């Protein structure tokens, strides 16, 4: 694999291809790659004027808009590293937002910030709170600078922040080489042609939106229809129209995106649309939800959509983005598992396998959809607690190695479930390999994903202790992978039935209807801990599976 340089498209940007942004007035505005190149080089000169040198960080504080694109490539042209900051969302409390964002900005220590005047006051508040007032604030709309020659001198292209437990942000150091390899892996995987067209509403502040739906098509110089996430939520039909009325053929979205569109779109409005050129619909960011995909394909199948377009995918920011994915020439594989017997380090019991389109029972519980095969150059192995490889069909932790593995966390903040080792990255995800395909079972006891958002057991314990008055030293919360979004188990030591009821209601309130909750009470010593007092959640998950935890007053909601 010899991936093209990240800025190769800038040498001959196309006039006839580019990005279309959805305007709030309802129309689409086209920006050719040539225009975007000129703007990027113009803003690059402003960035270089602010003494941004090789490897210096530039924070970009913008929503999805053309200026975000020129700020990203402008920073790279000037030799800097980007750190994208998401502007506040609807109903987001300003105090909380400023505190969270300041933590990111403080950790990124930017030399400059690119934003628009409308965010000036907020950016000022964040820089003050982060102790980073020395950073130069650059107007993203000022691309009048004399274009400068690309100088991609930075080793790290992108600081990709992910939220760790208790909201502590961690910046993944994604290198220029990581991006080159991963973008090329995606292009080869989905067999991306020059005439393929992407349509996306994903936030560009996350890896799937930024790398999968913006940087990859840009490297490919192919067209993209771009909406903001709130425009999609407001009217998912605008996104479907890109495929059904226009020329889009590629997309990526988490499960809930497909489920949301299926729930909100009036089938009558699909009349006259043709989805037969929709070639690739990547389903990522969570364990693939067969039910969500089935709902979506049932809605669109009468209008030419093929279930074969669905490509389940597995990836994480610590491995740049894409790790494994389904084969575009075959429907996704699904396995019917004996969930009750899942045991870490042990063989998984598979009743049967089938292809997603053939599953009469795809809506029934118990089927797990494969995340496909590892991309070329990326090695995926399943390891036990000591990091030793496990045989095929055994449940263990997913370990990734290869040129897409990022160069660690900024400031070496390595305190989460995902850990870098000298050889690769331990993902904190449990899974197994069957027939060469990766099946991701879920997070391992310490966290879980609900609608794309990671919920940490640590945080649930803090909220449970606050809400029930039983100290953290006497309770534990364990997340358990399962067939329908998973479940949560909580144990209180020396607590009573009233506590169990209260704790179960509290957890249910936080987690919502799709996650089942089980709370029980045990004598002192029920909760196993390490010598430093951390709960050994995976062992307790194991003991509970085997029926070896003797709990009283069990409440299940």
């Amino acid at each position, binding site marked *: 694999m010899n991936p093209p340089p990240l800025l190769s498209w800038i040498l001959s940007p196309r006039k006839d291809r580019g990005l279309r942004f959805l305007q709030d007035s309802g129309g689409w505005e086209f920006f050719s790659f040539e225009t975007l190149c000129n703007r990027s080089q113009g803003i690059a000169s402003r960035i270089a004027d602010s003494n941004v040198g090789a490897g210096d960080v530039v924070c970009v504080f913008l929503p999805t808009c053309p200026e975000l694109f020129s700020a990203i490539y402008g920073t790279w042209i000037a030799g800097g590293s980007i750190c994208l900051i998401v*502007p*506040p*969302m*609807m*109903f*987001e*409390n*300003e105090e909380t*937002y400023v505190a969270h964002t300041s933590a990111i900005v403080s950790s990124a220590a930017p030399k400059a910030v690119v934003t628009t005047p409308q965010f000036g006051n907020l950016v000022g508040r964040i820089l003050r709170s982060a102790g980073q007032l020395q950073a130069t604030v650059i107007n993203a709309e000022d691309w009048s600078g004399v274009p400068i020659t690309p100088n991609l001198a930075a080793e790290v292209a992108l600081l990709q922040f992910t939220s760790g437990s208790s909201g502590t942000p961690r910046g993944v150091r994604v290198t220029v080489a990581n991006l080159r390899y991963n973008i090329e892996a995606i292009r080869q995987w989905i067999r991306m042609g020059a005439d393929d067209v992407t349509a996306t509403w994903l936030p560009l502040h996350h890896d799937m939106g930024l790398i999968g739906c913006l940087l990859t098509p840009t490297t490919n110089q192919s067209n993209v229809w771009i909406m903001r*996430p*709130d425009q999609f*939520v*407001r*009217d998912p*039909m605008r996104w479907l129209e890109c495929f059904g009325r226009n020329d889009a053929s590629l997309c990526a979205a988490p499960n*809930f995106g497909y489920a*949301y569109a299926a729930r*909100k*779109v*009036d089938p009558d*409005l699909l009349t006259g649309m043709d989805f037969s050129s929709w070639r690739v619909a990547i389903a990522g960011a969570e364990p693939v939800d067969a039910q969500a995909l089935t709902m979506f394909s049932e809605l669109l199948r009468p209008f030419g959509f093929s279930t074969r377009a669905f490509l389940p995918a597995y990836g994480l920011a610590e491995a740049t983005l894409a790790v494994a994915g389904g084969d575009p020439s075959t429907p996704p594989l699904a396995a019917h598992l004996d969930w009750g017997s899942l045991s870490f380090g042990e063989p998984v019991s598979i009743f049967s396998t089938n292809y997603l389109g053939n599953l009469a029972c795809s809506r029934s519980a118990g089927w797990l959809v494969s995340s496909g095969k590892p991309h070329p150059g990326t090695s995926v192995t399943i390891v036990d607690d000591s990091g030793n490889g496990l045989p095929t069909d055994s449940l263990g932790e997913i370990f990734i190695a290869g040129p897409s593995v990022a160069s660690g966390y900024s400031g070496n903040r390595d305190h989460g479930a995902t850990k870098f080792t000298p050889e690769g990255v331990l993902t904190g995800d449990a899974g197994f390999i069957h027939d060469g395909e990766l099946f991701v079972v879920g997070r391992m006891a310490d966290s879980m994903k*609900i*609608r794309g*958002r990671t919920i940490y057991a640590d945080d649930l314990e803090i909220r449970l202790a606050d809400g029930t008055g039983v100290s953290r030293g006497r309770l534990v919360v364990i997340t358990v992978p399962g067939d329908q979004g998973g479940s949560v188990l909580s144990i209180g030591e020396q607590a009573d039935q009233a506590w169990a009821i209260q704790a179960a*209601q509290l957890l*249910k*309130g*936080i*987690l*919502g*209807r799709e996650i089942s909750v089980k709370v029980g009470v045990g004598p002192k010593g029920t909760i196993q801990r390490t010598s430093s007092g951390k709960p050994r959640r995976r062992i307790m998950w194991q003991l509970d599976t085997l029926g070896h935890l003797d709990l009283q007053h069990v409440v299940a909601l």
Partner: protein
Amino acid sequence: MMQLANKLGRASSVLHRTTMSEAKSTHDRVLEVVSHLTQGRVGPVNPDSRLVEDLSLDSVALLELAIALETEFDLPLMNAATTSSIVTVRELQEHVEEQARRKR
């Protein structure tokens, strides 16, 4: 816009002209929209319920809430700046009432 309103299909009661005597009903209707969104999964919704902390509404659900209210009360589009100080259902009720009053 009407098409969007139909598609959203949430609590599609007739739009009332807000008068002092109907101020209470604005509050009730906001409560109804919120309750419809949580679908009883977090217990009863009351004016003191906090949207994020108590009702566990995530960013997508909060957007849905804003869209449902804009449609129900024919309000100008809400955004991050106008909603950043709203924490509880009561504050939301007051915000909607204020916006509806301005519209008149």
